[in-house]
């Protein structure tokens, strides 16, 4: 019987010929990523709970400080120091302030065919390069670090057949929010979203990252694209080699199949407080906003900065709005400087911040206050996600966010 890409990656990692959904396997992990959200706890457990603390292979480990960077309090700094000291002592690759963890991982580590654990739910992003990346907690991460292995319940795969191409002014983020709105916040719980079809071929690696990144918002264990020529080119540009390039077999088994016609997608927004509360963006136009956020591991890359800059160019951010622009990595930031995008944002009155998780994570920079409203390209709009429990978060595309920042209320780019 045939296997899907996800099943083939797990089979390879488990050292078996074939796996099927529902099996539990012990797998060798190709890589593990941990950020400042939980690493201090991992380090504490490493020193205090283990009888025989050891690291199976330091080369598999990557530590990234991206959530509260630069730190906002002495306690945060203490937690980060623990992480930094550990990385230094053990020779673990360490990144601080260089970008959001998933962006760093994509730029420097992820290879097709790999099985990667990340102590962050958006680790599913790596499927954009045909890798199996999934989010785990710090205990799983610790177990993986010590043994180099973990246990995996082989998930079912759901096929998302994409057709057509996105219309002008409609972005991969609109597509993914549309999908989540349709299938629901647990629509693919414990399953893999496999994106395929002619429409998938029209998407760049950046675009694919946008889709895969949000898969967890529909409950998915991960999302994945076949590592085609587009993915391999991305890899070559960065001097990396695939671990293995897998395709799903003709007779692979899917739990379900969906088809989405890209040409029918319209700009959408997710209303507070749920990612699947998706409506056409026009329906929320006119909502007064206090802050707009362009950034995150979902939507802080050069593509989105270009879209945002084109909209604010020659315009001013509304007086009462704080427009946060946060490149996803130093590499993205640097390129945006070269392309003149940063200058455009700064001249428009935006607040351009160093690459970090910012208000998408709501605990460090750009926190919103009581009853305030944020329109965001971040990953989530949960109650209180960006600050005060009474505050509200709307999710929209980079275009919608930039246009709203200028107008001072939610609007789509064509309404400016």
């Amino acid at each position: 019987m045939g296997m899907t890409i996800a099943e083939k990656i797990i089979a390879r990692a488990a050292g078996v010929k074939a796996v099927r959904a529902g099996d539990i396997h012990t797998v060798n992990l190709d890589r593990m990523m941990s950020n400042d959200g939980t690493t201090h706890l991992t380090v504490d457990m490493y020193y205090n709970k283990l009888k025989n603390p050891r690291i199976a292979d330091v080369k598999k480990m990557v530590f990234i400080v991206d959530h509260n960077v630069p730190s906002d309090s002495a306690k945060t700094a203490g937690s980060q120091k623990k992480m930094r000291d550990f990385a230094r002592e053990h020779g673990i690759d360490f990144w601080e302030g260089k970008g959001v963890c998933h962006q760093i991982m994509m730029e420097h580590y992820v290879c097709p065919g790999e099985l990667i654990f990340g102590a962050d739910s958006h680790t599913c992003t790596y499927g954009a390069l045909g890798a199996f990346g999934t989010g785990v907690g710090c205990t799983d991460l610790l177990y993986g670090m010590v043994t180099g292995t973990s246990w995996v319940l082989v998930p079912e795969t759901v096929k998302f057949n994409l057709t057509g191409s996105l219309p002008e002014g409609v972005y991969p983020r609109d597509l993914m929010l549309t999908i989540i709105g349709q299938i629901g916040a647990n629509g693919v719980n414990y399953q893999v979203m496999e994106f395929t079809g002619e429409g998938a071929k029209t998407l760049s690696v950046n675009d694919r990252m946008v889709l895969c990144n949000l898969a967890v918002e529909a409950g998915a264990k991960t999302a994945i694209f076949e590592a085609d020529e587009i993915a391999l080119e991305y890899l070559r540009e960065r001097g990396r080699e695939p671990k293995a390039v897998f395709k799903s077999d003709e007779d692979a088994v899917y739990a379900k199949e969906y088809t989405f016609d890209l040409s029918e997608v319209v700009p959408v927004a997710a209303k507070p407080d749920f990612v699947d509360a998706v409506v056409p963006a026009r329906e929320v136009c006119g909502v007064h906003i206090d802050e707009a956020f362009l950034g995150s591991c979902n939507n802080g890359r050069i593509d989105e900065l270009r879209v945002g800059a084109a909209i604010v160019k020659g315009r001013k951010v509304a007086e009462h709005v704080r427009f946060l622009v946060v490149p996803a990595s130093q590499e993205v930031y640097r390129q945006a400087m070269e392309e003149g995008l940063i200058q455009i944002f700064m001249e428009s009155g935006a607040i351009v911040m160093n690459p970090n998780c910012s208000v998408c994570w709501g605990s460090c920079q750009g926190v919103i206050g009581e009853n305030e409203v944020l329109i965001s390209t971040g990953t989530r709009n949960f109650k209180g996600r960006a600050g005060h429990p009474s505050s509200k978060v709307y999710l929209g595309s980079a275009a919608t966010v930039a246009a709203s920042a200028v107008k001072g209320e939610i609007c789509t780019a064509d309404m400016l």
Partner: protein
Amino acid sequence: MGQTIIEKIIARNIGAASVKPGDIVTVNVDRVMLDDIMMPFIVNKFQEMGFKEVWDPDKVVLIYDHLVPASQQDDTRHYRIGDEFAARHGLTHVHRSDGICHQLMTEAGYVKPGDVVFGTDSHTTTYGCVGAFSTGIGYTEMAAILGTGQLWVKVPETIRVVIDGTLPEGVMSKDIILRLIGDLGADGATYRALEFGGQTVEQMSIASRMTMANMAIEAGAKCAAFIPDEKTAQYCGIQLSGFQAGLRGDADASYVKTLTYRAEDFLPVMACPSQVDKIRNVSELAGTVIDQVFIGSCTNGRLEDLQAAAAVLKGKQVAPFVKLIVTPASRKVYLEALECGALQTLMDAGAIITHPGCGLCCGRTGGILCDGERVVATNNRNFLGRMGTSKVEIYLASPVTAAACAVAGKIVDGVQV
């Protein structure tokens, strides 16, 4: 009898022929600066005092900088209170994310030579760089000014500082002011004005003068004063009036003391934890291992500071596991540094570039440290707990020295790198 710069400004302001130290006079305020952190308190006091109107909205500048970007849920309350006050009283000079207050007050042309200016921040002494009389006050007095346009001041005695000659390479005006604070002591100029003169000062950019005026408060000074010259006129976008051009200490003015320095004698120095007047030569501290470097603040976050740091860091990398945080002083500085490539050089060397604001210097966000960590910083205070816990060690230095330390991962003399 002759007058000092500050005496001339105060006398002119109150319409007197002259004033002398110790006189208590009521001045008419030319400009005030209100910052975000104090705004709720100012508004409360203003209301409590029973004022209905701001005496002159055009003379009021409201700047959000300490709490930008917001790091706590309650921070945006300060913006809201500021916005409401500005709307109610017709304030038009409001800066919500353009940078640090003192940088904006001078850079955006709110302060001119000879002006009398007050701000709710102690580093309001900065505007002495363009020959204004400016000083920091509390929120209660600010509320009273907003209602009346006036404030009483005691005319300060003046200490004169004369520096002649050319500074050695790698020595910046920060090294001068740190040395001076060390010589005077943290209270050596309390209630007094510091008036700067001499060739070295004349040759300095306005930015370098700002660094010195900014830190006058760290010797306890009420204010600082530089002679307005052609550079000042150009910086302020004005032609000096007869009064402004005459703002220099008279030959027979009375100074409480005069300190004379030779520029060639200055060396790179640092203020060591946790007193601003605990000054040591950098060479004496060489080898001290550091965790972080901060280049920014109203003291040293200007274009020439970023360029000086970039020159040191060009083609080099920040030491592993050391964080270099760079915070331009204003949006304008950021854009200029972007234009000339300094930001790119800093970023390529591994710097974290933040949005302009007070950042780490005011201890609310931007790289707070924890017990046992050591930071070299270009800002103005190294007080206990200023950047985190009381077990954080803060060394104050010039941008050149700070940049060199970032590369080395330990304290080094910038000239030697």
